[in-house]
């Protein structure tokens, strides 16, 4: 077995391991009862995709795949940030609504 063959086997095994990990994370994303599970699993899938694309660029010996990896890193950050911000807003709105409810109940009790 030459060095090239050994490298290609190494890369392929790493890719398959990443693929299995992505499948498992995806199952958590589907099942996860709360939204935090889903946001975290999307972030993790994005990181694993970037790693797989970098491994692919070493395997196929193409340099343009590193451009794709760069784009992915920046854009997946944007997606996770916007997802989290929508949920922080929801949480604040619900907290404000429940504050109003408790304030209203206190007023009723006092009156």
């Amino acid at each position, binding site marked *: 077995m030459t060095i090239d063959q050994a490298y290609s086997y190494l890369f392929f095994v790493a890719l398959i391991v990443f693929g299995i990990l992505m499948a498992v994370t995806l199952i958590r994303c589907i099942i996860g009862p709360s939204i935090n599970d889903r946001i975290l699993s999307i972030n993790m899938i994005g990181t694993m995709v970037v790693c797989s694309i970098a491994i692919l660029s070493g395997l196929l010996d193409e340099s343009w795949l590193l451009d794709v990896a760069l784009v992915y890193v*920046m854009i997946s950050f944007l997606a996770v940030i916007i997802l989290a911000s929508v949920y922080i807003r929801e949480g604040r709105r619900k907290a404000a609504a429940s504050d109003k409810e408790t304030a209203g109940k206190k007023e009723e009790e006092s009156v």
Partner: protein
Amino acid sequence: MTSFEKWFYGETDVLNHAMDEAREPDSPDHARKERVKARLAEIRETEQYRERVENSRKEFRGLYLAVTAVGAIALIGVLLYVTACLPEYGAENPHTLEVITRYIEKGLEETGAVNIVSGIILDYRAFDTLGESHVLFTALICSMLLLRLDRKNMRSDHEDYYTVRTDKFFDLSADQIFRRVGAFLVPSIFIFGIYVVLNGQVSPGGGFSGGAILGAGLILFSASFGFEKVDRIFTRKVSSIITLCSLGFYSFAKGYVFFTGANGIENHIPKGTPGNILSGGMILPLDIAVGLVVGCTMFGFYSLFRRGSIGGNGAATGKSSK
């Protein structure tokens, strides 16, 4: 200001009178709608209606599921069989052999672009790209028609105009993570987007990808620093002028090339040496035009959905942003 300028800059609204009639309390449509609502409320109270709603959910449910499953499986089977009949990935198909060999053999010398895909999109089939850019522009205009929030058309029960426009309680631009990472990441995204747009004919990329990256960069900028900072550089006028000039330039340039090509006249556009940035004839300027249109469109959609206007708080005061 002449009346044309007033209409052009958005101070008078063409659809103003048509859409407001049904909402006035005095119009006949409004009275009819009130009657319909009252009648519906009466109907929903009765027992028979409730029973019918309950039963319609229970009966035939098994039948619907069975028919849906059979139909879906049949469709999947047909699609899989047809896909299996296609030639293999990378094999030579006698039907399209002529076009493929022409593109691959003569693509570099006829278009001057190392990236044959960019050469095909923006040189051989530039007419299709022209249509696609116009489709993007039309989508943006239609979204603006439907989603623009003015004082006049903001009358809904669970949203108040001023809370939507001045959404400070749920605004996250004061967050530390947004600011610090945004300060580092937004310039990087812009530079990378410009790099991808300019290198369309040399390395993979091109107008559409670069435009999407620029749009995503603008979205990140507005999400992490607030909308006031974006409004300083990207107002509605800027967006209109950019799209107008880009699409106009694309149409005139390609019109000139088609005219000279159809009549057999030589169009004196230099091809340059392949591999440089300034090569490939018209591919570089057209890439820039397409990238700008796509970037403006992406950010325009985001801004319209978030706050009902593309730039500025012109709607709050009733005048266009100046």
